[in-house]
């Protein structure tokens, strides 16, 4: 289709002298989408570890009802940075990384549409993250007003300190936003124009559909957050009064602008995870993806509906009744396309031939836990119930079931699944399973207790609490530490396998999809020859993919 344009790009690329095993290229300003993808994934994983450490400190404080581990300003700074890092420096940019790696391969393209822009998008990220985290070193520390940064509380800063935590927070989030916008332009263009001959929209993998939907949301909604933050910066540092209630400003307008982006952000994070499920579940159940077209279209459906639901975060913000009711209806509608996805996954697995390797365990575990996240989400959409549990741990439990138990599980599924493709080596299956079970048990121990705590009225963001809430909190904290431990076998496995793992064949899982037709790892320009697509996706009925390749790729740990 637009295959010619991708060949033109090859001309003005950097010289091809980067050898396959030259690790230095991962520290260079490379324009290869695969290198950039790996750079994103590794960088954001480091941020994930930092965010996780902060979470464990928070949980350490919450083991006992009293405030005895962290003083209050520090605690407030920790949950602010924890939430901010996890969202803006882990899940969203990790998705940009894995999408960067996979989308051109899945489309049969040689690279992203704008390779240089791609490199710039990535290189904005590490300095912004370091800037944000370095605010711990300021005399009065980090931002302390939560990742929502609601005014007027976010405007209460140490007098006489123009450079303060809040200031740094705004600047880094705006920078990260700029990087995301650049990325979004690149993804949308790539998906529209760089598809291989024969790769029609309805032959694209669902992963690509979901990346397209998520990146469209970035384009449409992110400017609203950027605008809000710039106005907030003016209020903070230059004496304007956009959001100051006692000086004719309106703090509620900030909430509208903020959630207009930050609700869809949930789907910017979740859609790629749904895409990963749609790749992994069919491959390990040897079934075509059940209802492929509806699942593909449901991605767009989720994106569209999610633009119109932001007020469900503001049901108690002096929001008039008509608005509450209207947004209750729209919020509940999101359940329809997401339901279609969940049914499709289950039907794919039903009456199949399951292979329970690590990626499949993570995908099934994540899909199962998504059900609890989704159901509690529908509950929260019901205004009368939300008015009871808003700002309690019920909400914290709900969104961690989504962001950790679904999305982070999907991310692990993706890492294991594409590890052989990316590194050319197999990971150790046994350690993968250990990692899965520790994570699955830890995740439920950590986040399930938050639901009953919230129902009983434990407010979020408190550093000390009524002793009657202690029981569930102890379980959640121990679960949190288990989650911390669970990451160790993962890191060991990744590094060990990268260095000593068995060589992987091109298609160790006998999966369909163009990325499996090239070598592991793929060459600089992805394909020896641009493939021509002639078959539907997820063609697991086709004997071509059912033949066993003569290799012993599977016993990774042996």
């Amino acid at each position, binding site marked *: 289709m637009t295959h010619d344009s991708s060949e033109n790009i090859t001309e003005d690329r950097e010289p091809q002298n980067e050898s396959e095993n030259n690790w230095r290229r991962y520290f260079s300003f490379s324009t290869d989408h695969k290198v950039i993808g790996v750079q994103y994934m590794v960088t954001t994983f480091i941020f994930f570890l930092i965010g996780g450490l902060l979470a464990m400190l928070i949980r350490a404080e919450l083991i006992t009802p009293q405030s005895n581990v962290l*003083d209050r300003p520090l605690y407030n700074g920790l949950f602010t940075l924890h939430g901010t890092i996890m969202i803006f420096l882990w899940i969203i940019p990790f998705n940009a990384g894995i999408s960067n790696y996979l989308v051109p391969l899945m489309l049969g393209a040689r690279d992203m549409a704008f390779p240089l822009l791609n490199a710039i998008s990535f290189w904005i990220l590490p300095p912004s993250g370091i800037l944000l985290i370095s605010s711990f070193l300021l005399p009065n520390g980090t931002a302390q007003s939560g990742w929502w940064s609601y005014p*007027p509380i976010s405007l209460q800063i140490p007098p006489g300190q123009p450079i303060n935590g809040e200031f740094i927070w705004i600047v880094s989030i705006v920078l990260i936003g700029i990087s995301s916008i650049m990325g979004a332009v690149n993804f949308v263009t790539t998906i529209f124009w760089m598809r291989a001959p024969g790769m029609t929209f309805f032959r694209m993998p669902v992963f690509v559909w979901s990346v397209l939907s998520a990146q469209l949301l970035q384009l449409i909604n992110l400017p609203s957050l950027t605008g809000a933050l710039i106005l907030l910066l003016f209020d903070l540092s230059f004496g304007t009064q956009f959001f100051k*209630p006692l000086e004719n400003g309106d703090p509620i307008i900030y909430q509208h602008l903020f959630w207009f982006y930050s609700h869809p952000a949930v789907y910017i994070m979740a859609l790629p995870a749904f895409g990963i499920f749609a790749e992994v579940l069919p491959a390990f159940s040897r079934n075509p993806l059940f209802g*492929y077209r509806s699942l593909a279209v449901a991605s767009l459906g989720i994106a569209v509906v999610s633009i119109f639901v932001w007020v469900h975060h503001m049901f108690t913000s002096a929001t008039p*009744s008509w608005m509450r009711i209207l947004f209750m*209806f729209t919020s509940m509608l999101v359940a329809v396309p997401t339901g279609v996805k969940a049914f499709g996954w289950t039907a794919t697995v039903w009456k199949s031939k399951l292979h329970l390797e690590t990626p499949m365990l993570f995908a099934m575990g994540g899909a199962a836990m998504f059900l609890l996240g989704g159901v509690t989400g529908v509950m929260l959409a019901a205004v009368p*119930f939300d008015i009871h549990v808003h700002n309690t741990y019920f909400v914290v439990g709900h969104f961690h079931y989504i962001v950790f138990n679904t999305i982070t599980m999907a991310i692990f599924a993706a890492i294991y699944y594409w590890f052989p493709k990316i590194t050319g080596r197999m990971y150790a299956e046994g350690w993968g399973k250990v990692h899965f079970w520790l994570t699955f048990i830890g995740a439920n121990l950590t986040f399930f207790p938050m639901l009953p705590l919230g129902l009983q009225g434990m407010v979020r963001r408190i550093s000390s609490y009524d002793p009657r809430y202690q029981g569930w909190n102890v379980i959640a904290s121990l679960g949190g530490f288990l989650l911390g431990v669970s990451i160790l076998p993962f890191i060991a496995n990744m590094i060990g396998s990268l260095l000593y793992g068995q060589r992987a064949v091109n298609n160790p899982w006998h999966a369909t999809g163009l990325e499996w037709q090239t070598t592991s790892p793929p060459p600089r320009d992805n394909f020896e020859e641009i493939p021509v697509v002639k078959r539907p996706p997820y063609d697991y009925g086709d004997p071509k993919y059912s033949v066993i390749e003569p290799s012993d790729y599977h016993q990774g740990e042996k």
Partner: protein
Amino acid sequence: MSRFLEYLLIAGYIAVLLVVSHWIGQQAYSWMPPEATAEAQKVDSLFSFLTSIGAFIILGLVGMMVYSVLFFRAPKNDYSEGHPSRGDIKLEFLWTAAPTLLVLWLAFQGFNIYQQLNILGLQQVVHLHTPLEEPVYAASSDDKPKGAAETIDVFVKQWDWSFRYPNNFTSNELHLPVNRRTRLNMHAKDVLHSFYVPEFRLQQYIVPGRDIDLVVTPTRTGQYKLKDALFSGTYFALMDADVHIESLEQYNQWLSQTQHQPTTIKNQAVAEYTQPPKTFFKSGWYTVAPEQRAIANERKVMNDT
């Protein structure tokens, strides 16, 4: 024949699921604190209903997954196809239409209960000080304050609640007569706060510069805690107040007695500001200083807002 058996099994499974999820829905009442207002009962029945439906969906799908894991395993190294079916229009239509109807039903149920809460007085009325936004938020016809027997002013600031009763008596305890509609007229001084008593099942942000009304009808005597639910800065966790629901006689008695015996109370935030607890990590980062209020119960018009 075996097909018939399969359908029979599925029907049996669904029947069991229905019973189990109904039972779980009934349990849901006990997961929440006692119901202390007329509103609370409505909210709880909505939650119970949502829980039953949610349990049905979760158990149904997780059941299918677990069954698959147990019975549909491939022999090692068998990479042949499971079954070639790529979709089924009828089934897909069904599972799009069914959730659509289901969520519409849930939304209408929520809407109904919301209406009933409104009649009870949950609906807040927002008055504005700033003329600029009047057209947007001005009380529309259905936003009329509901009749209430008492009006209590609620003043909230970092990090302190106080309440002014109709006789101009001000206290840091909230006393409410049982079974009477009481209007709370809420004012925030500095930042956003949120009025939240878990047993009341309601929550309302209080925005500085706006007067926000909330009408409650407590139905159960006892002592509860009012919390600030919206993060309001350093000493947020310490910001609660005692709520007493009592008979009208006791309420009146309290009003007349306490105002003759002012007591000094300890504001927790102030106490901690002057004497921070010994924590393992100390950052010493900046915090807004809480204001001391020496007298807990006093009879004086406050000019707080």
